[in-house]
């Protein structure tokens, strides 16, 4: 391999010279505008003399002049247009940008005008202007495309302008750990790594995802990385056992890091690593085109939640070596369950779900969850009118009638439900643990809803308030609190 000696770059670049008398030609070119500038300077001197007479105004004027000069220098440095701006507007925009405020209409007007893809008439918010500013001034196309995230770990995809293709391409993901007060404790770049998820593990975090793609015809290479608590990359993996190899969930199990993934939308893959990055085990099972939502420890093995829009949820039990043991479905003759979260806590397995009456036909999720509601709205019986103008006051009770939030308490070894809790008129949400290690179960309760037949993303949308149920470690219900949080609902 050839040795890379970048000192020679200096030698080679030193040989690149502009045409002869380049500096002289610039100076000649600059002399023309200099004449016009001269008269301007006389006026400026006269103005300053008038101000001298004003005595106490001097200090303020000098400050103003300095700020203006700084502002113009800034405008020049960032190639911002000054032609249509007054002196005070130039200073105001300069202050607005350099303080990170981005709240002036004029700032938004200038910046958004220069950023491709800005839609005229859209609401100009400070965050939109700031994002546009970052895009505009990105060197090599660096931009942060995700909305600000909360929490200890944040993930941002950084892009660059690809000169050959002429559009922005994903480059790497910037992982940041933030402390209280939002200070960044460390950050690390993961090259060609779209992060799908992470879990805290002993001494750091395990992140997983896949390589960047911009077309469904491109293959996705599995990416897994272990990052230490102080932000060092301990190891990272590329795997491509399938055209599309996509890790989807992980479990930290003692000295083992177990990653579950999808292979070509057909197989469930199980890969076990140790903390040094050695691959201890790999297995694959054909499960069909099913999404992998979540995985938890179950006894000595694992429970993986699979989801399919037509067939509903399934839970797959795997042993410690990744072998399939059993498939669990929580069904009843007249009720469908949709799992929303799983948690192992205090030796118990908890499953959060919601239930709805089994539709007469069709898929078991999505809009079919609301078959009776739609039947009511679309009813064009003898009167032929239906209820297309249904109000929120009418719709909310119909939605409440359709759903029941359910919490299953399952045997940690078998996964069989031992006990369940139900809340009528709600959806089961996230499970978590409070500071006293007590189980918290969030349930979503409809407050407002509307029907919108022409919207592509949904037909019925609603907002729900989140009520939290807390359980003691022995499973006793301790109480209910209103979190004050609101979440959305769309079908």
């Amino acid at each position, binding site marked *: 391999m050839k040795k890379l000696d970048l*000192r020679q770059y200096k030698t080679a670049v030193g040989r690149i010279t502009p045409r002869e008398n380049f500096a002289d030609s610039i100076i000649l070119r600059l002399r023309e505008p200099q004449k016009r500038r001269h008269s301007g300077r006389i006026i400026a001197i006269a103005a300053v003399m008038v101000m001298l007479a004003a005595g106490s105004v001097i200090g303020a004027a000098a400050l103003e002049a300095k700020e203006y000069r700084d502002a113009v220098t800034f405008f020049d440095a960032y190639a911002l247009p000054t032609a249509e701006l007054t002196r005070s507007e130039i200073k105001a925009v300069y202050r607005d940008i350099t303080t990170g405020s981005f709240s002036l209409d004029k700032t938004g007007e200038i910046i958004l005008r220069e950023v491709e893809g800005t839609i005229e008439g859209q609401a100009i918010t400070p965050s939109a202007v700031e994002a546009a500013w970052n895009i505009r001034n990105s*060197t090599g196309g660096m931009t942060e495309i995700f909305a600000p995230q909360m929490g200890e770990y944040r993930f941002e995809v950084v892009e*660059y302008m690809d000169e050959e293709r002429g559009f922005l391409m994903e480059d790497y993901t910037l992982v940041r750990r933030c402390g209280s007060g939002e200070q960044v404790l460390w950050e690390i770049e993961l090259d060609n790594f779209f992060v799908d998820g992470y879990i805290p593990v002993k001494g750091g975090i395990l992140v997983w995802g896949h390589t960047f793609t911009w077309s469904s015809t491109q293959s996705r290479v599995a990416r897994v990385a272990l990052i230490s608590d102080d932000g060092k990359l301990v190891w990272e993996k590329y795997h491509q056992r399938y055209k599309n190899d996509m890790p989807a969930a992980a479990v930290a199990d003692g000295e083992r890091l177990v990653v579950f993934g999808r292979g070509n939308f057909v197989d469930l893959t199980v890969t076990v690593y140790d903390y040094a990055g050695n691959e201890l085990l790999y297995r694959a099972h054909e499960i069909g085109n099913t999404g992998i939502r979540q995985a938890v420890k179950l006894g000595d093995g694992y429970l993986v939640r699979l989801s399919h829009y037509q067939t509903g949820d399934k839970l797959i039990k795997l042993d410690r070596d990744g072998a399939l043991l059993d498939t669990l479905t929580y069904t009843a003759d007249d009720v469908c369950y949709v799992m929303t979260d799983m948690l192992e806590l205090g030796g118990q397995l908890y499953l959060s779900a919601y239930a709805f009456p089994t539709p007469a036909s069709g898929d078991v999720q999505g809009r079919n969850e609301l078959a009776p509601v739609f039947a009511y709205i679309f009813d064009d019986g003898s009167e032929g009118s239906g209820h297309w103008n249904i109000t929120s006051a009418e719709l909310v009770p119909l939605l409440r009638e359709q759903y029941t939030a359910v919490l299953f308490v399952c045997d940690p070894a078998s996964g069989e439900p031992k006990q369940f809790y139900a809340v009528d008129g709600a959806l089961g949400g996230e499970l978590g643990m409070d500071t006293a290690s007590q189980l918290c179960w969030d349930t979503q309760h409809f407050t407002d809803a509307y029907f919108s037949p022409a919207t592509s993303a949904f037909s019925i949308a609603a907002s729900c308030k989140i009520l939290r149920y807390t359980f003691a470690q022995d499973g006793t219900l301790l109480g209910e609190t209103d979190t004050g949080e609101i979440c959305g609902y769309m079908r």
Partner: protein
Amino acid sequence: MLDERIEAAVRREADALFRLAYTQLRSRADAEDVVQEVFLTYLRHAPHFESETHERAWLMRVTINRCRDMLRSAWVKRRAEMPDDLPDDRTDEADELLAAVLALPVKYRTPIHLYYYEGYAIREIAELLGCRPATVGTRLARGRALLRRALTEEEEDLHEKA
């Protein structure tokens, strides 16, 4: 008369700014245009600088921004794929290295030039480019890795032809 300060800056910095612009644009004509634009901007607004270092940094930043604007419009025009005036008669390893650097994406070319030719520190480059020092460090490392790979592949090609 042209302000002595500006004239001195032209004589002192024109070549360096030209080299910076050239390594980004890979075209002598475009690089010369950009440098002239930069000094016209300097003349029009005559910003005050505390030192020559400060002035130089400002000129570098304006040059980088002007090049960036030109690159953005250049892709629409889409001229030739290859630089219009790369030396074809590479006489030594230094020329080979220069050609390899110029073949890198601009996001790697710029920090490499500022670091290895201009001698700026990573922190200073980060300020000039408006990004984080960690990003500059990563781009330098990746740029070096790409250069190493490009030069090795070239060497292997030569061996195969031989």
